[in-house]
């Protein structure tokens, strides 16, 4: 029977089936062809230091999902690195009791084959029988060979997993590279941008503002001129964003009060809040919230968040700004009621150039995140679709 079984095992292990199904077939075969009632193949989890049930066949009695590295017969096999046989009672009956394997209840004989090579453990093959079994030397040899085949199956699985991981890593590196390329091009472009576009914009907008001064306050041309002035300001803002993005200045850290920085950011937007009918609700921590920070950069970070909130509530709304202490963190929460972010975009909003706005550059949140990261802080989003968004910034208290 020996070669017969071996041929079939090889057929299974070479088949196109998923690796776990191949091993399942082998387990089934072992229960059928050997005097065992239960066959289980465990996989070794090196992180958790556990043997975890991978596939099983035969009796469900005493099926144990996992064994710790010191538990039961599998634990003993791991310790001795050897193939073990145990009978109840018998010449090796002591082994049986010693192991206190709860999976052995209802069985009279069992054996374990380590699935390992010189470098590492992959798992083990666990066979149990309700009757006493004596394996012939030929059968033992056969099980050893089958164990080896199982090891190569595990290796296969292992390699295909690391291949997959490598694939994801390459994709990640690739996307980061293209992003880096974008940035380099952008950096070169921005110098040209600044000069070639900013200068004409300055005269365009500057003269429009002069025109505004000259025409009668009730002239119908006021509308046109207002458009000119405002559109130019917006273009300038986009250029500022792009320049800021490529600038990447070194941060200068000093002890500062977060409440104070936020107040300044809010003050900066006070006219805009009025214009869009946005109510500000301040809930600042009473005492100053000291952090080590680059004031200028942090302000940019908050400006971006506030600007986004305003843009989501252009027809009016409420912006709640609160600061608090949370263990060693200083926390800033900015909550708007501008309807929130569509869930399908939620994973994209921090990407550079991602925008849903007609005139956005999509750099605001990316810049903000970079700044917060530079401060060893974190930023989280709580999105309530249909209601609004809360951006939480956490910084280490000084």
């Amino acid at each position: 029977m020996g070669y017969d079984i071996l041929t079939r095992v090889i057929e299974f292990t070479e088949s196109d089936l998923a690796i776990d199904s191949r091993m399942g077939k082998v387990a089934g075969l072992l229960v059928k062809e050997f005097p065992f009632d239960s066959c289980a193949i465990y996989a070794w989890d090196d992180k958790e230091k556990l043997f975890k049930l991978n596939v099983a066949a035969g009796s469900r009695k005493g099926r144990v999902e996992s064994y710790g590295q010191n538990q039961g017969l599998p634990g003993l096999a791991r310790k001795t690195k050897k193939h073990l046989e145990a009978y109840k009672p018998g010449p090796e009956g002591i082994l049986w009791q010693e192991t206190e394997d709860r999976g052995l209840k209802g069985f009279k004989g069992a054996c374990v084959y380590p699935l390992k090579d010189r470098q590492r453990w992959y798992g083990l093959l666990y066979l149990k029988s309700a009757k006493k079994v004596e394996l012939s030397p030929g059968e033992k040899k056969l099980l050893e060979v089958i164990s080896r085949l199982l090891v190569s199956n595990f290796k296969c699985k292992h390699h295909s997993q690391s291949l997959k991981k490598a694939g994801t890593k390459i994709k990640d590196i690739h996307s980061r590279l293209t992003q880096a390329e974008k940035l380099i091009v952008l950096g070169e472009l921005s110098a040209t941008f600044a000069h070639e576009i900013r200068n004409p914009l300055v005269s365009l907008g500057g003269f429009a503002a002069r025109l505004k001064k000259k025409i009668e306050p009730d002239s119908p041309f006021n509308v046109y001129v207002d458009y000119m002035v405002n559109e130019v300001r917006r273009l300038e803002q986009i250029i500022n964003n792009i320049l800021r993005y490529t600038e990447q200045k070194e941060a200068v850290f000093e002890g500062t009060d977060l409440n104070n920085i936020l107040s300044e950011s809010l003050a900066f937007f006070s006219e805009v809040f009025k214009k869009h009918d946005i109510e500000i609700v301040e809930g600042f921590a009473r005492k100053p919230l000291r952090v080590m920070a680059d004031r200028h950069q942090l302000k940019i970070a908050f400006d971006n968040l506030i600007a986004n909130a305003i843009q989501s509530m252009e027809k009016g709304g409420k912006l709640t700004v609160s600061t608090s202490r949370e263990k060693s963190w200083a926390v800033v929460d900015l909550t708007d009621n501008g309807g929130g972010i569509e869930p399908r975009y939620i994973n994209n909003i921090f990407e550079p150039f991602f925008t849903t706005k007609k005139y956005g550059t999509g750099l605001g949140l990316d810049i903000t995140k970079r700044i917060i990261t530079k401060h060893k802080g974190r930023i989280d989003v709580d999105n309530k679709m249909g209601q609004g968004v809360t951006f939480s910034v956490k910084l280490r208290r000084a």
Partner: protein
Amino acid sequence: MKKRVLVVDDEEGIRLLYKEELEEEGCEVTLAASGEEAIEKLESDSIDLVLLDIKMPGMDGVEVLRKVKEKWKDLPVILCTAYPHYKNEFGTWASEAYIVKSSDLRELIDTIKNILEMKQ
């Protein structure tokens, strides 16, 4: 007495805009379209403040600034440019102020007023 401001910029639109705005603020304005012309004007006219663009063909703003500080040590200079990048390099060095050009002229006008008032 009216203060005299020298505007140095290679862009005609900018020169005209600054001239009109500053005249409205009660200054007398002299224009120069290049670094070389700026030095000429400084030699011939008596100037109270210089508004200086950095990036110009030929003699650029940095060179002009250096000359000015050699010859007219106490003459205030405002660097006025499309680039925010230079701020660290030149901002604290020799000029009185560094302003990034914007169509909103309030910052520029305020800075000019402050500097001229302090000089009095």
